[in-house]
Protein backbone atom coordinates (compact mmCIF):
# COMPACT_ATOMS: atom_id res chain seq x y z
CA UNK A 1 0.00 0.00 0.00
CA UNK A 2 1.23 3.50 -0.78
CA UNK A 3 0.88 6.30 1.75
CA UNK A 4 0.68 10.03 1.49
CA UNK A 5 2.45 12.19 4.06
CA UNK A 6 0.56 15.18 5.42
CA UNK A 7 2.54 17.92 7.15
CA UNK A 8 1.46 21.10 8.90
CA UNK A 9 3.89 23.48 10.59
CA UNK A 10 3.69 25.79 13.57
CA UNK A 11 6.51 28.29 13.74
CA UNK A 12 7.24 30.48 16.74
CA UNK A 13 8.99 33.65 15.67
CA UNK A 14 10.44 35.85 18.39
CA UNK A 15 9.68 39.44 17.43
CA UNK A 16 12.67 41.76 17.68
CA UNK A 17 11.09 44.44 19.85
CA UNK A 18 13.21 46.24 22.45
CA UNK A 19 10.82 45.43 25.29
CA UNK A 20 8.60 42.49 26.21
CA UNK A 21 5.06 42.13 24.92
CA UNK A 22 3.24 43.14 28.11
CA UNK A 23 5.88 44.96 30.18
CA UNK A 24 8.94 47.18 29.68
CA UNK A 25 11.61 44.59 30.51
CA UNK A 26 14.34 44.39 27.85
CA UNK A 27 14.29 41.41 25.50
CA UNK A 28 18.10 41.18 25.23
CA UNK A 29 19.47 37.66 24.89
CA UNK A 30 21.97 35.92 27.21
CA UNK A 31 21.67 38.33 30.14
CA UNK A 32 22.35 37.30 33.74
CA UNK A 33 19.42 35.17 34.99
CA UNK A 34 16.27 36.99 36.02
CA UNK A 35 17.65 40.48 35.44
CA UNK A 36 15.14 41.10 32.62
CA UNK A 37 12.11 40.60 34.85
CA UNK A 38 9.58 42.71 36.71
CA UNK A 39 6.32 42.26 38.66
CA UNK A 40 4.33 41.88 35.40
CA UNK A 41 6.31 39.05 33.79
CA UNK A 42 6.80 37.44 37.20
CA UNK A 43 2.99 37.51 37.63
CA UNK A 44 2.98 39.25 40.98
CA UNK A 45 -0.53 39.92 42.27
CA UNK A 46 -1.99 43.16 40.98
CA UNK A 47 0.52 43.70 38.20
CA UNK A 48 -1.26 44.36 34.91
CA UNK A 49 -0.12 43.69 31.34
CA UNK A 50 0.05 46.59 28.86
CA UNK A 51 0.41 45.63 25.21
CA UNK A 52 3.52 46.63 23.23
CA UNK A 53 2.41 48.64 20.17
CA UNK A 54 5.47 47.59 18.17
CA UNK A 55 4.69 43.87 18.56
CA UNK A 56 1.23 44.52 17.10
CA UNK A 57 2.73 46.47 14.19
CA UNK A 58 5.20 43.71 13.40
CA UNK A 59 2.47 41.07 13.42
CA UNK A 60 0.38 43.20 11.06
CA UNK A 61 3.34 43.71 8.74
CA UNK A 62 3.71 39.95 8.53
CA UNK A 63 0.01 39.57 7.77
CA UNK A 64 0.25 41.87 4.79
CA UNK A 65 3.45 40.21 3.58
CA UNK A 66 1.64 36.86 3.25
CA UNK A 67 -1.57 38.24 1.68
CA UNK A 68 -3.49 37.55 4.88
CA UNK A 69 -6.47 39.17 6.53
CA UNK A 70 -5.31 41.52 9.28
CA UNK A 71 -8.07 41.65 11.88
CA UNK A 72 -8.82 45.13 13.12
CA UNK A 73 -10.14 43.50 16.28
CA UNK A 74 -8.41 40.55 17.91
CA UNK A 75 -8.58 38.96 21.33
CA UNK A 76 -6.05 37.83 23.92
CA UNK A 77 -6.87 34.61 25.76
CA UNK A 78 -5.39 32.77 28.69
CA UNK A 79 -4.06 29.33 27.87
CA UNK A 80 -3.79 27.44 31.14
CA UNK A 81 -0.89 25.16 31.90
CA UNK A 82 1.19 24.50 34.99
CA UNK A 83 4.94 24.54 34.61
CA UNK A 84 7.60 26.59 36.39
CA UNK A 85 8.62 28.36 33.17
CA UNK A 86 5.37 30.37 33.43
CA UNK A 87 4.77 32.03 36.79
CA UNK A 88 1.28 33.06 35.62
CA UNK A 89 0.21 29.41 35.29
CA UNK A 90 -1.12 30.44 31.90
CA UNK A 91 0.23 31.83 28.69
CA UNK A 92 -1.29 34.97 27.23
CA UNK A 93 -2.05 34.02 23.65
CA UNK A 94 -4.71 34.54 21.01
CA UNK A 95 -7.35 31.94 20.30
CA UNK A 96 -10.82 32.88 19.05
CA UNK A 97 -9.72 35.83 16.96
CA UNK A 98 -6.02 36.04 16.05
CA UNK A 99 -4.54 39.24 14.65
CA UNK A 100 -3.74 37.55 11.31
CA UNK A 101 -5.54 34.78 9.41
CA UNK A 102 -6.05 33.28 5.94
CA UNK A 103 -2.63 33.99 4.43
CA UNK A 104 -0.45 32.15 1.94
CA UNK A 105 3.06 31.81 0.73
CA UNK A 106 4.68 30.20 -2.28
CA UNK A 107 7.51 27.72 -1.95
CA UNK A 108 10.09 27.03 -4.65
CA UNK A 109 10.77 23.33 -5.17
CA UNK A 110 13.86 21.65 -6.56
CA UNK A 111 12.21 20.70 -9.86
CA UNK A 112 11.69 24.43 -10.51
CA UNK A 113 7.97 24.37 -9.73
CA UNK A 114 6.29 26.49 -7.09
CA UNK A 115 3.50 25.53 -4.67
CA UNK A 116 1.04 27.58 -2.65
CA UNK A 117 0.89 26.79 1.07
CA UNK A 118 -1.95 28.30 3.07
CA UNK A 119 -1.29 30.06 6.35
CA UNK A 120 -4.20 29.41 8.68
CA UNK A 121 -3.36 32.10 11.19
CA UNK A 122 -0.64 34.04 12.95
CA UNK A 123 -1.22 35.15 16.51
CA UNK A 124 0.63 37.12 19.17
CA UNK A 125 1.61 35.49 22.44
CA UNK A 126 4.09 35.69 25.30
CA UNK A 127 7.10 33.38 25.41
CA UNK A 128 7.90 31.28 28.51
CA UNK A 129 11.03 31.27 30.67
CA UNK A 130 13.69 28.57 30.82
CA UNK A 131 14.34 25.77 33.31
CA UNK A 132 17.69 24.27 34.12
CA UNK A 133 17.42 20.83 35.67
CA UNK A 134 19.94 20.20 38.38
CA UNK A 135 19.55 17.01 40.39
CA UNK A 136 16.77 17.32 42.94
CA UNK A 137 15.95 20.89 41.97
CA UNK A 138 15.17 22.90 38.86
CA UNK A 139 16.45 26.43 38.43
CA UNK A 140 14.18 28.93 36.74
CA UNK A 141 15.33 31.87 34.64
CA UNK A 142 12.45 34.09 33.55
CA UNK A 143 14.38 36.53 31.36
CA UNK A 144 12.63 35.15 28.26
CA UNK A 145 9.18 35.05 29.87
CA UNK A 146 7.03 37.64 28.14
CA UNK A 147 9.15 38.04 25.01
CA UNK A 148 6.74 38.63 22.12
CA UNK A 149 6.15 35.66 19.85
CA UNK A 150 4.28 35.42 16.60
CA UNK A 151 3.02 31.86 16.19
CA UNK A 152 2.47 31.15 12.51
CA UNK A 153 0.30 28.12 11.73
CA UNK A 154 0.22 26.61 8.25
CA UNK A 155 -2.51 24.57 6.65
CA UNK A 156 -1.72 20.83 6.53
CA UNK A 157 -0.81 21.25 2.87
CA UNK A 158 2.73 19.97 2.65
CA UNK A 159 3.23 16.48 1.30
CA UNK A 160 6.96 15.87 1.76
CA UNK A 161 9.85 16.97 3.93
CA UNK A 162 11.20 18.86 0.92
CA UNK A 163 8.04 20.99 0.85
CA UNK A 164 8.16 21.47 4.62
CA UNK A 165 11.76 22.66 4.56
CA UNK A 166 11.07 24.90 1.54
CA UNK A 167 8.15 26.45 3.47
CA UNK A 168 10.36 27.07 6.51
CA UNK A 169 13.10 28.62 4.40
CA UNK A 170 10.63 30.94 2.68
CA UNK A 171 9.04 31.93 5.99
CA UNK A 172 12.47 32.49 7.52
CA UNK A 173 13.47 34.68 4.63
CA UNK A 174 10.22 36.70 4.78
CA UNK A 175 10.52 37.54 8.49
CA UNK A 176 14.16 38.54 7.95
CA UNK A 177 13.25 40.78 5.00
CA UNK A 178 10.51 42.37 7.09
CA UNK A 179 13.01 42.84 9.92
CA UNK A 180 10.47 41.63 12.46
CA UNK A 181 12.75 38.95 13.92
CA UNK A 182 16.40 37.89 14.03
CA UNK A 183 15.05 34.42 13.20
CA UNK A 184 18.16 32.86 14.69
CA UNK A 185 17.39 29.16 15.04
CA UNK A 186 20.31 28.43 17.38
CA UNK A 187 19.24 31.14 19.80
CA UNK A 188 15.65 29.98 19.54
CA UNK A 189 14.17 33.04 17.89
CA UNK A 190 12.75 30.85 15.08
CA UNK A 191 11.39 27.54 16.42
CA UNK A 192 9.25 25.03 14.67
CA UNK A 193 6.83 22.31 15.65
CA UNK A 194 5.92 19.80 12.97
CA UNK A 195 2.57 18.01 12.69
CA UNK A 196 2.90 14.77 10.74
CA UNK A 197 0.34 12.17 9.73
CA UNK A 198 0.03 9.58 7.00
CA UNK A 199 -2.95 8.27 5.05
CA UNK A 200 -3.34 5.59 2.42
CA UNK A 201 -3.12 7.19 -1.01
CA UNK A 202 -6.57 8.23 -2.20
CA UNK A 203 -8.08 8.37 1.28
CA UNK A 204 -9.97 11.59 1.89
CA UNK A 205 -9.76 12.00 5.67
CA UNK A 206 -6.52 12.73 7.50
CA UNK A 207 -4.74 10.18 9.64
CA UNK A 208 -3.89 10.82 13.28
CA UNK A 209 -1.45 13.68 13.59
CA UNK A 210 1.54 13.63 15.86
CA UNK A 211 3.22 16.87 16.89
CA UNK A 212 7.02 16.99 17.05
CA UNK A 213 8.51 19.79 19.11
CA UNK A 214 11.98 21.02 19.82
CA UNK A 215 13.49 21.06 16.34
CA UNK A 216 16.15 23.72 15.91
CA UNK A 217 17.48 23.25 12.41
CA UNK A 218 16.05 22.68 8.92
CA UNK A 219 18.10 19.49 8.66
CA UNK A 220 16.49 18.07 11.80
CA UNK A 221 13.03 18.97 10.47
CA UNK A 222 13.64 16.73 7.47
CA UNK A 223 15.10 13.96 9.66
CA UNK A 224 12.23 14.10 12.17
CA UNK A 225 9.63 13.91 9.41
CA UNK A 226 11.41 10.95 7.80
CA UNK A 227 11.57 9.12 11.12
CA UNK A 228 7.95 9.79 12.00
CA UNK A 229 6.64 8.77 8.55
CA UNK A 230 8.57 5.51 8.82
CA UNK A 231 7.26 4.86 12.35
CA UNK A 232 3.65 5.52 11.40
CA UNK A 233 3.84 3.56 8.14
CA UNK A 234 5.33 0.57 9.92
CA UNK A 235 2.60 0.68 12.57
CA UNK A 236 -0.02 0.76 9.80
CA UNK A 237 1.49 -2.15 7.94
CA UNK A 238 1.82 -4.16 11.15
CA UNK A 239 -1.85 -3.56 11.91
CA UNK A 240 -1.11 -1.65 15.12
CA UNK A 241 -1.77 1.88 13.83
CA UNK A 242 -4.66 2.48 16.24
CA UNK A 243 -2.63 1.63 19.34
CA UNK A 244 0.74 3.03 18.27
CA UNK A 245 -0.21 6.27 16.57
CA UNK A 246 -2.33 8.61 18.65
CA UNK A 247 -2.54 12.36 18.96
CA UNK A 248 0.44 13.24 21.11
CA UNK A 249 3.45 15.48 21.40
CA UNK A 250 6.84 13.96 20.68
CA UNK A 251 10.33 15.41 20.97
CA UNK A 252 13.14 15.18 18.45
CA UNK A 253 16.08 13.51 20.13
CA UNK A 254 19.22 14.70 18.36
CA UNK A 255 21.47 12.09 19.97
CA UNK A 256 19.24 9.12 19.11
CA UNK A 257 18.09 10.45 15.75
CA UNK A 258 14.54 9.55 16.73
CA UNK A 259 11.31 11.09 18.01
CA UNK A 260 10.21 10.10 21.49
CA UNK A 261 6.97 10.48 23.38
CA UNK A 262 6.81 13.54 25.62
CA UNK A 263 3.91 12.63 27.84
CA UNK A 264 1.50 9.74 28.28
CA UNK A 265 -1.54 9.16 26.13
CA UNK A 266 -4.03 9.83 28.92
CA UNK A 267 -2.54 13.21 29.82
CA UNK A 268 -3.43 15.16 26.72
CA UNK A 269 -3.43 18.84 27.52
CA UNK A 270 -6.59 20.79 28.22
CA UNK A 271 -5.72 24.45 28.04
CA UNK A 272 -9.10 25.85 29.06
CA UNK A 273 -8.81 28.97 26.93
CA UNK A 274 -10.81 32.00 27.96
CA UNK A 275 -10.53 35.73 27.15
CA UNK A 276 -7.96 37.42 29.39
CA UNK A 277 -9.92 39.75 31.68
CA UNK A 278 -6.80 41.93 32.10
CA UNK A 279 -6.70 42.79 28.41
CA UNK A 280 -9.49 44.34 26.40
CA UNK A 281 -9.72 43.51 22.70
CA UNK A 282 -6.90 44.74 20.49
CA UNK A 283 -8.42 47.45 18.31
CA UNK A 284 -6.23 48.63 15.49
CA UNK A 285 -6.75 52.13 14.07
CA UNK A 286 -7.23 52.83 10.36
CA UNK A 287 -3.93 54.67 10.46
CA UNK A 288 -2.10 51.57 11.72
CA UNK A 289 -3.86 49.45 9.10
CA UNK A 290 -2.52 51.77 6.39
CA UNK A 291 0.95 51.94 7.87
CA UNK A 292 1.22 48.13 7.99
CA UNK A 293 0.72 47.95 4.23
CA UNK A 294 4.15 49.50 3.64
CA UNK A 295 6.21 46.36 3.32
CA UNK A 296 9.69 46.19 1.81
CA UNK A 297 10.27 44.27 -1.42
CA UNK A 298 10.10 40.56 -0.53
CA UNK A 299 12.08 37.68 -2.05
CA UNK A 300 9.36 36.60 -4.54
CA UNK A 301 9.03 40.14 -5.89
CA UNK A 302 12.81 40.48 -6.11
CA UNK A 303 13.13 37.23 -8.06
CA UNK A 304 10.49 38.37 -10.53
CA UNK A 305 12.14 41.77 -10.93
CA UNK A 306 15.62 40.33 -11.36
CA UNK A 307 14.36 37.99 -14.08
CA UNK A 308 12.28 40.58 -15.93
CA UNK A 309 14.32 43.74 -15.57
CA UNK A 310 17.85 42.43 -15.26
CA UNK A 311 17.60 39.32 -17.43
CA UNK A 312 18.95 37.05 -14.70
CA UNK A 313 18.32 33.30 -14.61
CA UNK A 314 15.73 32.13 -12.06
CA UNK A 315 18.17 29.82 -10.26
CA UNK A 316 20.62 32.68 -9.79
CA UNK A 317 17.85 35.00 -8.62
CA UNK A 318 16.77 32.42 -6.02
CA UNK A 319 20.33 32.06 -4.72
CA UNK A 320 20.78 35.82 -4.42
CA UNK A 321 17.42 36.49 -2.74
CA UNK A 322 17.54 33.58 -0.28
CA UNK A 323 19.37 35.83 2.13
CA UNK A 324 18.34 39.44 2.62
CA UNK A 325 21.97 40.48 3.09
CA UNK A 326 22.96 38.86 -0.20
CA UNK A 327 20.19 40.64 -2.12
CA UNK A 328 21.23 43.97 -0.59
CA UNK A 329 24.86 43.30 -1.50
CA UNK A 330 23.83 42.53 -5.07
CA UNK A 331 21.72 45.67 -5.34
CA UNK A 332 24.58 47.71 -3.88
CA UNK A 333 26.84 46.34 -6.67
CA UNK A 334 24.35 47.37 -9.34
CA UNK A 335 24.46 50.98 -8.18
CA UNK A 336 27.80 51.23 -10.01
CA UNK A 337 26.00 50.59 -13.31
CA UNK A 338 27.80 47.37 -14.10
CA UNK A 339 26.33 44.60 -16.23
CA UNK A 340 23.89 42.66 -13.95
CA UNK A 341 25.01 39.32 -15.39
CA UNK A 342 28.66 40.06 -14.54
CA UNK A 343 27.50 41.09 -11.09
CA UNK A 344 25.74 37.72 -10.66
CA UNK A 345 28.81 35.76 -11.72
CA UNK A 346 31.20 37.73 -9.57
CA UNK A 347 28.89 37.55 -6.57
CA UNK A 348 27.66 33.94 -6.76
CA UNK A 349 30.77 32.18 -7.99
CA UNK A 350 33.86 34.32 -7.45
CA UNK A 351 33.06 36.08 -4.18
CA UNK A 352 30.88 33.36 -2.57
CA UNK A 353 33.41 30.69 -3.50
CA UNK A 354 36.16 32.62 -1.74
CA UNK A 355 33.92 33.41 1.26
CA UNK A 356 32.93 29.76 1.65
CA UNK A 357 36.57 28.75 1.58
CA UNK A 358 37.32 31.31 4.28
CA UNK A 359 34.29 30.22 6.30
CA UNK A 360 32.67 33.64 6.12
CA UNK A 361 29.16 34.71 5.24
CA UNK A 362 28.25 37.65 3.05
CA UNK A 363 27.87 40.05 5.99
CA UNK A 364 31.50 39.40 6.96
CA UNK A 365 32.87 39.79 3.44
CA UNK A 366 36.24 41.57 3.52
CA UNK A 367 35.39 43.14 0.16
CA UNK A 368 32.35 45.38 0.00
CA UNK A 369 29.85 45.65 -2.85
CA UNK A 370 31.10 49.00 -4.18
CA UNK A 371 34.69 47.73 -4.37
CA UNK A 372 33.86 44.56 -6.24
CA UNK A 373 31.65 46.59 -8.57
CA UNK A 374 34.61 48.89 -9.31
CA UNK A 375 36.68 45.83 -10.11
CA UNK A 376 34.01 44.59 -12.54
CA UNK A 377 33.87 48.00 -14.20
CA UNK A 378 37.64 47.76 -14.73
CA UNK A 379 37.09 44.53 -16.68
CA UNK A 380 34.32 46.19 -18.65
CA UNK A 381 36.61 49.11 -19.54
CA UNK A 382 39.39 46.66 -20.49
CA UNK A 383 41.73 48.01 -17.82
CA UNK A 384 42.24 44.48 -16.51
CA UNK A 385 41.49 41.03 -17.90
CA UNK A 386 38.94 38.70 -16.28
CA UNK A 387 41.76 36.52 -15.11
CA UNK A 388 43.69 39.49 -13.77
CA UNK A 389 40.58 40.63 -11.87
CA UNK A 390 40.44 37.28 -10.08
CA UNK A 391 44.00 37.87 -8.92
CA UNK A 392 42.95 41.31 -7.68
CA UNK A 393 40.07 39.76 -5.73
CA UNK A 394 42.38 37.13 -4.26
CA UNK A 395 44.72 39.92 -3.21
CA UNK A 396 41.91 41.84 -1.51
CA UNK A 397 40.75 38.77 0.42
CA UNK A 398 44.16 38.82 2.11
CA UNK A 399 45.12 42.51 2.15
CA UNK A 400 43.63 45.83 3.20
CA UNK A 401 44.36 47.85 0.07
CA UNK A 402 41.08 48.69 -1.71
CA UNK A 403 42.20 51.04 -4.49
CA UNK A 404 41.75 48.79 -7.53
CA UNK A 405 44.12 50.76 -9.77
CA UNK A 406 46.85 50.62 -7.15
CA UNK A 407 46.44 46.84 -6.84
CA UNK A 408 46.43 46.35 -10.61
CA UNK A 409 49.70 48.29 -10.84
CA UNK A 410 51.19 46.54 -7.86
CA UNK A 411 50.43 43.10 -9.30
CA UNK A 412 51.47 44.20 -12.81
CA UNK A 413 48.07 43.31 -14.20
CA UNK A 414 47.39 46.49 -16.18
CA UNK A 415 45.96 45.52 -19.51
CA UNK A 416 47.08 47.30 -22.66
CA UNK A 417 44.04 48.07 -24.77
CA UNK A 418 45.52 51.04 -26.57
CA UNK A 419 45.48 50.21 -30.28
CA UNK A 420 48.73 52.07 -30.97
CA UNK A 421 50.73 50.23 -28.35
CA UNK A 422 49.42 46.82 -29.41
CA UNK A 423 49.96 47.60 -33.10
CA UNK A 424 53.58 48.49 -32.39
CA UNK A 425 54.14 45.05 -30.85
CA UNK A 426 52.28 43.31 -33.67
CA UNK A 427 54.36 45.07 -36.30
CA UNK A 428 57.56 44.04 -34.56
CA UNK A 429 56.36 40.43 -34.38
CA UNK A 430 55.42 40.37 -38.07
CA UNK A 431 58.72 42.01 -39.11
CA UNK A 432 60.74 39.47 -37.18
CA UNK A 433 58.79 36.55 -38.67
CA UNK A 434 58.43 37.51 -42.31
CA UNK A 435 58.79 33.86 -43.40
CA UNK A 436 55.83 32.78 -41.23
CA UNK A 437 53.76 35.70 -42.53
CA UNK A 438 54.33 34.45 -46.05
CA UNK A 439 53.40 30.89 -45.09
CA UNK A 440 50.23 32.17 -43.43
CA UNK A 441 49.28 34.19 -46.46
CA UNK A 442 49.76 31.15 -48.66
CA UNK A 443 47.13 29.27 -46.64
CA UNK A 444 48.67 28.00 -43.43
CA UNK A 445 45.85 29.36 -41.20
CA UNK A 446 47.08 27.58 -38.10
CA UNK A 447 49.93 30.05 -37.82
CA UNK A 448 47.46 32.69 -36.57
CA UNK A 449 47.76 31.20 -33.10
CA UNK A 450 51.49 31.61 -33.26
CA UNK A 451 51.20 35.35 -33.97
CA UNK A 452 48.72 35.81 -31.11
CA UNK A 453 50.98 33.91 -28.72
CA UNK A 454 54.06 35.83 -29.77
CA UNK A 455 52.29 39.18 -29.38
CA UNK A 456 50.98 38.26 -25.94
CA UNK A 457 54.42 37.09 -24.93
CA UNK A 458 56.09 40.30 -25.98
CA UNK A 459 53.44 42.32 -24.11
CA UNK A 460 54.21 40.18 -21.04
CA UNK A 461 50.57 39.14 -21.00
CA UNK A 462 49.31 42.65 -20.60
CA UNK A 463 47.75 43.06 -24.04
CA UNK A 464 44.00 42.74 -24.29
CA UNK A 465 43.62 39.38 -26.09
CA UNK A 466 40.45 40.39 -27.93
CA UNK A 467 42.17 43.47 -29.30
CA UNK A 468 45.23 41.48 -30.29
CA UNK A 469 43.04 39.09 -32.24
CA UNK A 470 41.14 41.83 -34.00
CA UNK A 471 44.22 43.86 -34.89
CA UNK A 472 46.16 40.82 -36.12
CA UNK A 473 43.28 39.78 -38.38
CA UNK A 474 43.24 43.26 -39.83
CA UNK A 475 47.01 43.33 -40.36
CA UNK A 476 47.22 39.91 -41.95
CA UNK A 477 44.24 40.20 -44.26
Amino acid at each position, binding site marked *: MRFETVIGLEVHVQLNT*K*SKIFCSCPTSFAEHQNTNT*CPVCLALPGALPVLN*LEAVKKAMLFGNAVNATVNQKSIFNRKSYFYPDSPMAYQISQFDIPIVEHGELFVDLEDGSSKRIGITRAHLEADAGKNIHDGS*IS*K*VDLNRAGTPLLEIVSEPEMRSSEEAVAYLRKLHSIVRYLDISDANMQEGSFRCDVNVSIRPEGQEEFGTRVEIKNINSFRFVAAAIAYEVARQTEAYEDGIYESEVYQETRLWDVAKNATKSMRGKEDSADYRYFPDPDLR*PVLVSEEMMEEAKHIPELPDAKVARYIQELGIKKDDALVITALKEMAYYFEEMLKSNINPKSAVTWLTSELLGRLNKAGLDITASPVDAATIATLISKIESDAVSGKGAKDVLDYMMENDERNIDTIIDKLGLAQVSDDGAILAIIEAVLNDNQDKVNEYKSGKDKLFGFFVGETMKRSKGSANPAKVNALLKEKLS
Partner: protein
Amino acid sequence: MYNNKTSNKEENVQIDNTILEKLEKLSHLKIDDGKKEEIIHQLSDIVAYVENLSELDTSGLDASFSTLTGGTPMREDVSSKQEEVIKSILAHAPQSEDDFFVVPAIIE
Protein backbone atom coordinates in the same frame (compact mmCIF):
# COMPACT_ATOMS: atom_id res chain seq x y z
CA MET B 1 -3.55 23.29 18.56
CA TYR B 2 -6.92 24.89 19.06
CA ASN B 3 -9.12 21.91 18.47
CA ASN B 4 -10.59 21.97 21.99
CA LYS B 5 -12.73 24.92 21.06
CA THR B 6 -16.21 24.73 22.48
CA SER B 7 -18.98 25.80 20.18
CA ASN B 8 -21.86 28.00 21.24
CA LYS B 9 -24.38 25.39 20.31
CA GLU B 10 -22.93 22.62 22.41
CA GLU B 11 -25.15 19.78 23.57
CA ASN B 12 -26.17 19.86 27.20
CA VAL B 13 -23.21 18.56 29.16
CA GLN B 14 -23.97 15.46 31.20
CA ILE B 15 -21.68 15.24 34.20
CA ASP B 16 -20.77 11.62 34.82
CA ASN B 17 -17.94 9.75 36.49
CA THR B 18 -15.64 10.07 33.50
CA ILE B 19 -15.98 13.84 33.38
CA LEU B 20 -15.61 14.08 37.14
CA GLU B 21 -12.39 12.08 36.93
CA LYS B 22 -11.06 14.46 34.29
CA LEU B 23 -12.02 17.47 36.39
CA GLU B 24 -10.26 15.97 39.40
CA LYS B 25 -7.12 15.60 37.36
CA LEU B 26 -7.28 19.11 35.89
CA SER B 27 -7.99 20.76 39.24
CA HIS B 28 -5.50 18.64 41.15
CA LEU B 29 -8.28 17.78 43.60
CA LYS B 30 -9.17 14.38 45.02
CA ILE B 31 -12.86 13.80 45.68
CA ASP B 32 -13.82 11.10 48.17
CA ASP B 33 -15.79 8.26 46.66
CA GLY B 34 -18.56 8.94 49.17
CA LYS B 35 -18.95 12.51 47.95
CA LYS B 36 -18.85 11.81 44.23
CA GLU B 37 -22.57 11.47 43.68
CA GLU B 38 -23.31 14.69 45.53
CA ILE B 39 -20.64 16.59 43.59
CA ILE B 40 -21.92 15.23 40.28
CA HIS B 41 -25.39 16.44 41.22
CA GLN B 42 -24.15 19.90 42.19
CA LEU B 43 -22.04 20.28 39.05
CA SER B 44 -24.98 19.24 36.90
CA ASP B 45 -27.11 21.91 38.57
CA ILE B 46 -24.45 24.55 37.90
CA VAL B 47 -24.15 23.61 34.25
CA ALA B 48 -27.94 23.52 33.88
CA TYR B 49 -28.11 26.98 35.41
CA VAL B 50 -25.55 28.37 33.00
CA GLU B 51 -27.47 26.82 30.17
CA ASN B 52 -30.29 29.23 30.89
CA LEU B 53 -28.21 31.56 28.73
CA SER B 54 -28.98 29.43 25.70
CA GLU B 55 -32.55 30.73 25.80
CA LEU B 56 -31.29 34.04 24.45
CA ASP B 57 -31.28 34.33 20.69
CA THR B 58 -27.78 35.59 19.90
CA SER B 59 -27.81 34.81 16.18
CA GLY B 60 -26.83 37.88 14.25
CA LEU B 61 -24.83 39.30 17.14
CA ASP B 62 -21.06 39.57 17.12
CA ALA B 63 -19.19 37.69 19.81
CA SER B 64 -18.39 39.97 22.72
CA PHE B 65 -15.36 39.49 24.93
CA SER B 66 -15.54 42.33 27.40
CA THR B 67 -18.19 44.38 29.12
CA LEU B 68 -15.96 47.42 28.69
CA THR B 69 -15.94 49.46 25.51
CA GLY B 70 -12.79 50.47 23.68
CA GLY B 71 -9.59 48.60 22.99
CA THR B 72 -6.73 47.65 25.24
CA PRO B 73 -4.23 50.50 25.71
CA MET B 74 -0.88 50.08 24.03
CA ARG B 75 2.55 51.35 25.06
CA GLU B 76 5.54 52.50 23.05
CA ASP B 77 8.35 49.96 22.71
CA VAL B 78 10.74 51.42 25.28
CA SER B 79 12.64 49.16 27.63
CA SER B 80 13.55 49.86 31.24
CA LYS B 81 14.87 47.94 34.23
CA GLN B 82 14.24 48.21 37.94
CA GLU B 83 17.06 46.20 39.40
CA GLU B 84 16.13 46.90 43.01
CA VAL B 85 12.68 45.44 42.43
CA ILE B 86 13.95 42.14 41.05
CA LYS B 87 16.50 41.86 43.87
CA SER B 88 13.73 42.29 46.37
CA ILE B 89 11.51 39.74 44.61
CA LEU B 90 14.31 37.17 44.53
CA ALA B 91 15.01 37.81 48.21
CA HIS B 92 11.38 37.08 49.00
CA ALA B 93 11.15 33.93 46.87
CA PRO B 94 10.65 30.76 48.94
CA GLN B 95 13.90 29.46 47.48
CA SER B 96 16.49 31.01 45.21
CA GLU B 97 20.08 30.32 44.31
CA ASP B 98 22.56 32.34 42.29
CA ASP B 99 19.67 34.60 41.16
CA PHE B 100 17.66 31.64 39.88
CA PHE B 101 14.26 30.81 41.33
CA VAL B 102 14.51 27.29 42.66
CA VAL B 103 11.66 24.79 42.39
CA PRO B 104 11.45 21.05 43.06
CA ALA B 105 12.96 19.00 40.24
CA ILE B 106 10.70 18.82 37.21
CA ILE B 107 10.63 15.25 35.99
CA GLU B 108 10.78 15.31 32.21
